């Protein structure tokens, strides 16, 4: 059982100056688990996942990823980032490189594998997100949905153990949301461990093993999607769900 734990956060506290962004966050993620993080803006959900790959430093508590304790050492950060892939709201593709080069760079530089092998891996994952025919194009030549799928493929090329999604569909036009969600559903069905910050409650219902609700830097409530949506325990959760479900 212990072996199956991929991420373990214990008593995590984070401040931005005098502002506390995370308050005593405890979270355990098992291998293959799909977790959806939701909550109002400023509730700390993005900050939480950004701590997992050390884009943000924490001031108290501990984070262990795949058995490696994350501290301030470059070595520890390195090891953890090799295991953790991330997809951003604003895609963050490298605009001066083609789609293929975007996907090949990290395996070559960080995993030190050969060019031809890196290209084979890149093409495999671009195929998997159904964008193989756009490999020679530059990001600016693609639609938002296509760019986000490339970003997913780029992260997969590092063959991570867990994927973090930071509001991956929030910057997309409505007609492109589905293609990105479908890609993520495919990934989930293949058994990838995922933590998704998203407001897509349909996606949460369909793939999440657990839905976690955050407010003011704290985990307020968590549960299986069915129970979470049907019978939320806290007033704060009910209010939030009422607000976002009213839009859908």
């Amino acid at each position: 059982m212990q072996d199956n734990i991929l991420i373990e956060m214990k008593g995590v506290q984070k401040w931005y100056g005098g502002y506390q962004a995370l308050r005593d966050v405890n979270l355990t993620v098992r291998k293959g688990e799909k977790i959806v993080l939701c909550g109002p803006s400023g509730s700390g959900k993005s900050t939480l996942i950004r701590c997992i790959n050390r884009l943000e430093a924490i001031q108290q508590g501990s984070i262990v990823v795949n058995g490696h304790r994350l501290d301030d050492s470059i070595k520890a950060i390195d090891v953890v980032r090799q295991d953790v892939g991330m997809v951003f709201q604003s895609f963050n593709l490298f605009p001066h490189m083609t789609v293929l080069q975007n996907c090949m760079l990290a395996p070559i530089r960080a995993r030190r594998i050969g060019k031809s092998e890196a290209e084979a891996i890149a093409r495999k994952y671009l195929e998997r997100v159904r964008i193989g025919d756009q490999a020679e194009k530059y990001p600016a030549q693609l639609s938002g949905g296509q760019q986000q799928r490339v970003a997913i493929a780029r992260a997969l090329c590092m063959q991570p153990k867990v994927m973090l999604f930071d509001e991956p569909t929030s910057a997309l036009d409505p007609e492109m949301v589905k293609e990105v969600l479908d890609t993520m559903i495919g990934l989930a069905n293949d058994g990838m461990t995922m933590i998704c910050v998203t407001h897509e409650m349909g996606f949460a219902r369909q793939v999440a093993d657990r839905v976690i609700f955050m407010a003011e830097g704290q985990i307020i409530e968590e549960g299986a999607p069915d129970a979470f949506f049907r019978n939320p325990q806290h007033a704060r959760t009910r209010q939030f769900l009422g607000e976002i479900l009213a839009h859908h």
Partner: protein
Amino acid sequence: MAPHFGLPEFGFLLRGLQWTMLLTLVAFVGGCTAGLAVALLRTCGHKGVEWITRIYIGIFQGTPLLLQLFVVYYGLALTGLKLDAFVAVAIGFTVNASAFLGEIWRGAIQAVPRGQTEAAMALGLHHSSRMRDIVLPQAIRISLPATIGYLVQLIKGTSLAAIVGFIELARAGQIVSNQTFQPLLVFGVVGAMYFILCWPLSWWGSRMEARLALASQR
């Protein structure tokens, strides 16, 4: 009787032009190399190093170039290091250019969206790869119009080298003008030479700027 402005005088100006171009080239290439180091140190994330680089930039931006040339030429001579006029001004201009280009590129590096660095970090790329593969290629693009603008300033600025006795284009013009008593004609030719050198660069720079503005709209 004073000689008229003729072929020999024109040839003398051309040699001055050659020295101006050579000095510009040396200062620009040297300044780019050292300026890149300055820009990288200025943005390396280490507070102490960034602070020292900031002072370096501040000193060379905050004092007259003329003064800096004096220090290199006469100041070093006092310590027993007697430099050839060209070597002295080349050093002076190179160091000065490194500060200005360093500051231009510092701004360009910081203008590359934060998300680019974050994506690179999330992919496990180290600082050197993040800089070389992600940040610098984009920063150079961003900085190109300002860099070309600085090059134009540098070409014209090399006329200051005359102050320590180095005969570049402006000084050559002064000499010819004194000999021929035809200042209007001589300085007209000198001005035209500077213009031919600088104008295409300025034009290229503003075209770059327009293209970049267009690209950022997409």
